[in-house]
């Protein structure tokens, strides 16, 4: 088994007026990677590059250690993709859908599919068009997890779902990776989900990777330093991601928090969230300081 489920090296891709600019990251086997970015940041284009529906201009994409273009057919037997909108004809029933998928995947497991439908309490003979959004997403998950896929790719799959359904799905994903052979890449802008289940996280904006690493390390490494706007100039540039100037002072997103704790001991450094880290990194592109 390859060390990485996905390995993207220096991929550049122009698609529909959008540029994916020399991106590199990897998803270790047996882990969940959160792929975070605002709308239009390049998440879907990256995912389309991974499944080879968009051909990169340069760079290399390996899945399970195999080139994704050369071994496309073999790789696709082992991956499952869940999109934000259900792509199945809405006149079909889950039962019919199962028969369709049985003709598409060699390793389709009909029993597993039926038990997944039962687990999610999805009616087998009801048309998809009569399903709620939550039910549709569950159905996608059922099809994705019924052909022994080793890699699950999710493109904004949990957006628009209520917290109960999201939580139910996150539990399924955690079960999916517990045997260390399965991996998930989960693109989302709901960072609370990512914080809950992702082992690693990659931030993307404007087609560029902002930061990529282990989720807990990223959270521990960053912090919000509270100070007045006048004192910001005393803080070294290399420690700052960007600065939010507000009415009552400045919030400085700092990196290398442990060092900063010693260097700036007279200031309070608070814990931060993935949401804030994304916000400060995205704002950094428009200048070091920004106001609310």
């Amino acid at each position, binding site marked *: 088994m390859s060390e990485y489920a996905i390995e993207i090296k220096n991929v550049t891709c122009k698609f529909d007026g959008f540029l994916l600019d020399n991106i590199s990251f990897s998803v270790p086997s047996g882990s969940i990677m959160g792929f975070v970015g605002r709308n239009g940041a390049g998440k879907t284009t990256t995912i389309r590059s991974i499944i080879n529906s968009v051909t990169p201009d340069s760079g290399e994409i390996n899945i399970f250690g195999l080139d994704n273009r050369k071994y496309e057919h073999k790789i696709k037997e082992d991956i499952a993709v869940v999109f934000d909108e259900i*792509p199945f004809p809405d006149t079909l029933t889950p039962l019919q859908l199962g028969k369709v998928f*049985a003709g598409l995947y060699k390793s389709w497991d009909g029993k597993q599919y039926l038990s997944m439908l039962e687990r999610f309490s999805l009616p087998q003979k009801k048309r998809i068009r009569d399903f709620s959004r939550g039910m549709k997403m569950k159905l996608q998950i059922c099809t994705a997890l019924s052909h022994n896929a080793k890699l699950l790719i999710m493109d904004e799959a949990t957006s628009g779902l209520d917290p109960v359904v999201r939580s139910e799905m996150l539990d399924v994903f955690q079960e999916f990776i517990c045997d260390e052979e399965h991996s998930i890449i989960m693109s989302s802008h709901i960072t609370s989900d990512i914080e809950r289940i992702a082992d690693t996280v990659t931030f993307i904006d404007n087609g560029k990777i902002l930061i990529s690493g282990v989720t807990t390390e990223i959270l521990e490494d960053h912090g919000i330093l509270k100070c007045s706007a006048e004192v910001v100039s005393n803080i070294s540039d290399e420690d700052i991601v960007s600065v939010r100037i507000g009415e009552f002072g400045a919030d400085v997103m700092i990196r290398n928090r442990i060092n900063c704790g010693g260097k700036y001991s007279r200031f309070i450094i608070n814990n931060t969230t993935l949401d804030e880290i994304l916000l400060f990194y995205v704002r950094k592109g428009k200048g070091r300081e920004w106001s609310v």
Partner: protein
Amino acid sequence: MIGIFRKDVFVLRKQLILIALSVVGFVTLALLICGSFRYGNLAKLPEKDYADAFSSLTMLFGPLAAALAELALCTAFNGTISSDRKNGWYAFTSSLPVKKSSIALAKLLECASSAVLAAVVGVSATIGCYLIAGRTLSFNDILVPLLVVGIVLFVYMLPIFYIFRGKDTASFFVIVVLFVAVNAVLAVGMISSDNGTDIAKTADKLINMLPIVCLVLLAVDIVTFFLSWRISTSLLRKCDK
């Protein structure tokens, strides 16, 4: 690829039942009319020429049944191109272990299977109608529905459904092409006949050439199948990119 077939059949299940009922209804009506040519009031017409004229309509029912079956089936199957695009199925197929060429091939095979089914319906209807009407059946009479099937298949195999992205305009385009094709065949026949305005002579001449025309059409359909497969595959890839 079996999955793609199954999907289209499940999606079109109601339509396919309606098409089957319409074709069965049409053939039953045709058989009843042919029966009336032989046993009904039409057979008792005092003028023999009138009775013959009505009876000659027998030759139309088989080709019409074939055309009805094939047009309905091919339109239904090609219509899924549009719905597949709308509900994101094409984008989703990029994640499946199915090649774009297989997706294009599935649609072409659906049209070809429709043509085979339509040919069976057309030939059976022709034989049934001739038997019931008590007319002598020639080899050329059986070839007429096959000719119709071949022409319709040619038009439906053109990759225009992908060029028009499966929109309704594609069906309109198909009708225009069919109209032009049929008229072109008639015009060529009329120009080459001794009396350029005698449509009956033209029809006779065309019927005599039927075996050769059908063979040529079969060859054209086979070539179109493979060309269309390649073009449709590249069009599908372009749409995806």
